[in-house]
C-alpha cells in the first residue's frame, strides 16, 4: 500500500467527473521507501513518520508538530532568497533524517492528500499547501508568469514544483476542506476559483481570465483560473477568496 487509500470503498466521482480524494481512515498506515507513515485524526489530520536510517523528508519548518529528540534536522537551501522578500515564502526548507519519529500537521480542517510520484513526474502545488516530501523528490519552484496572473491569479507569486528523476517518492499535501481531482483531456478547459487551486500536473496550463462580471459597487471583472489539459487538476473546497477577502 503506497497511499493509504481505503480499498473497500467505491471511488466517489461526481457526475461532472470530479473525484474525491480518498479520505484516509484514522490510524491508516502505509509505506514509502523503507519508512512508514501513519495518519492520525480526521478533522485536522496529523502525518506521523517513522523514518528509516536511509530515509529523510523535507518540510516547511512551521508545520512540525513533534519529533523524537534523536531525529536530526538540517536545512536545505532553495535557490531563491528573493522568494522570501517578494513572495513571503521560506527560502529554507527543513530536512529530517532517520532513524526516528516525527509528525506534521497544518492548522486548518481538511484532508491529507498522498501523492506517490513515479520516476519522471512533475507536479505543481499551490504555495503553502505542501506538507512534506521524501528526500528522493527534487524541490524547486516556478514563478507565476504574466502580470495578470500575478495580480489576479490568487495563487501567489510562486508555485512549488516537485520532480522525480530516476527514483519514486512520496509527496503529501494538506488541502483545506475537501479535495477533489479531475483529469482534463488535451485541450479541455475548466474555470476554477484561483483560491481553490491546489495542485496540477505540470502539463496543465493555468491562466487568469477576466469574466465580464461586476463584483462590487466600483469593481468590475471577476478573475478565474482557466486550466487547460492534458493532466490532473486538484482543488480544495475551503479557501481564501482572493477577490473579496472572504
Amino acid at each position, binding site marked *: 500500500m503506497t497511499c493509504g487509500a481505503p480499498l473497500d470503498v467505491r471511488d466517489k466521482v461526481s457526475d461532472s467527473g470530479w473525484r474525491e480524494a480518498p479520505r484516509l481512515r484514522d490510524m491508516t498506515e502505509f509505506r514509502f521507501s523503507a519508512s512508514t507513515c501513519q495518519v492520525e485524526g480526521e478533522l485536522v489530520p496529523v502525518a506521523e513518520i517513522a523514518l528509516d536510517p536511509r530515509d529523510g523528508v523535507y518540510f516547511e519548518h512551521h508545520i512540525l508538530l513533534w519529533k523524537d529528540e534523536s531525529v536530526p534536522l538540517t536545512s536545505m537551501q532553495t535557490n531563491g532568497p528573493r522568494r522570501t522578500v517578494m513572495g513571503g515564502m521560506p527560502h529554507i526548507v527543513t530536512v529530517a533524517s532517520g532513524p526516528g519519529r516525527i509528525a506534521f500537521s497544518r492548522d486548518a480542517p481538511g484532508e491529507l492528500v498522498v501523492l506517490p510520484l513515479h520516476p519522471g513526474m512533475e507536479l505543481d502545488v499551490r504555495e503553502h499547501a505542501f506538507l512534506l516530501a521524501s528526500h528522493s523528490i527534487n524541490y524547486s519552484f516556478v514563478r507565476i508568469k504574466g502580470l495578470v496572473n500575478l495580480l489576479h491569479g490568487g495563487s501567489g507569486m510562486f508555485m512549488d514544483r516537485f520532480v522525480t528523476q530516476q527514483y519514486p517518492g512520496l509527496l503529501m499535501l494538506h488541502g483545506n476542506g*475537501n479535495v477533489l481531482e479531475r483529469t482534463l483531456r488535451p485541450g479541455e478547459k475548466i474555470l476554477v476559483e484561483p483560491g481553490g487551486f491546489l495542485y496540477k500536473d505540470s502539463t496543465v496550463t493555468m491562466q487568469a481570465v477576466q469574466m465580464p462580471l461586476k463584483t462590487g459597487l466600483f469593481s468590475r471583472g471577476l478573475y478565474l483560473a482557466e486550466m487547460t489539459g492534458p493532466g490532473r487538476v486538484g482543488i480544495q473546497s475551503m479557501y481564501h*477568496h482572493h477577490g473579496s477577502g472572504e
Partner: protein
Amino acid sequence: MNTYVCKYCRQPSDPSQPTCPLCGAPVDIRESVSDSGWIKQPPIKDMAKLQFGQSHCQIAGTTVPAAEFNLAHGEMVYFSHHVLLWADPATRLQNMSLRGGWKRMMAGLPMIMLEAHGPGHIALSDNHAGEVIALPLQHGQSIWVKEHRFLTATGNVRYDWNSNDVWYVTGTGDDRETHYPMGQFGDTFTAADRPGLLLLHAPGDAFVRDLRQGESLLVQPASLIYRDVSVRVHLHLEYPRNMGFSFWRSNWDYRNILIRLVGPGRVAVNSIFERPEGMESISNHSYATRRRW
C-alpha cells in the same frame, strides 16, 4: 398515494431512495433528538443528489461540502460571487442586480450576486467547516435566513432583505456604537410561482427545533441559521446577580445578550458562532425583554 414526509425538509418525499431527493437527508437513519427537543440535522451524504426542475445538484465532500449543479437549459441559480468554486466554460454567468447596494455595502453584505444559467455545470462552496442545508420551498413558502448563511437558490426563489430590528447601543458621545448581534439585515426567501430550492451553509453542526404556539426559547443571536417567518424574534437581556470579586463594577454592566424566539414555527441553530463582544453598559436598545437575577 405517497404519504411519506421527510423529517427534515417537511416535504412529501420518496422513502425508497437512500436520501431524500429534495433535501438530501438520509432516509434510513434514526432521528437524533436531544432530551430538550433539538433534532440533529444529519449531514447530506457524500455524492447525494437533489432534484429541482429538470436540473440536479450533487453534494461532494463532508468537511466543507461543495454543491455541484448540473443545470438544464432555461434553469438558473444565483449566489454571491465569493462562493464560486469552479464552472464549465459553457455555463453562462451574469450579474444579478440588488436594490440598496450602498446599504448592503455598509452592512458588510455582498452587493452583487451572480446568476449561472444552464446548460452547464457549476460548483459552489463556502469556506467554513460545516454542513450544507437544503431547504426545498413549496409554492408561496417563505423562510428567514441569517446573513452570510445563504449559499445559493434556484431562479424562481425570490430574494428580499430587511432590517432585523434587533440592536443595542453602547457608549456615549464619540464612543457611541450601535451593535447588531444577529446582523443588521436578514434574508427572506420565497418560492414565487412554483417550488424552489434554497441551499444554506452552516458552520459546525446544525440543529432544528419546532416551537409550539407561544413557546419561547433564548438562543445566542449569531447561532441562528434560519426560522420560519411565523417565529417572532426580539432582544433579551439577562443580568446575572453580581457576586464575588467584581463587586466594585456596576451591577448592570455584566450581562448576557440573547434573542428570544417565540413560536409557532421551526428554528435552526449552528454550533459555531461569534459571541457578542464587549461588556460596556447598554444605553439604548430595540424592544427587549429583561431578566435580572
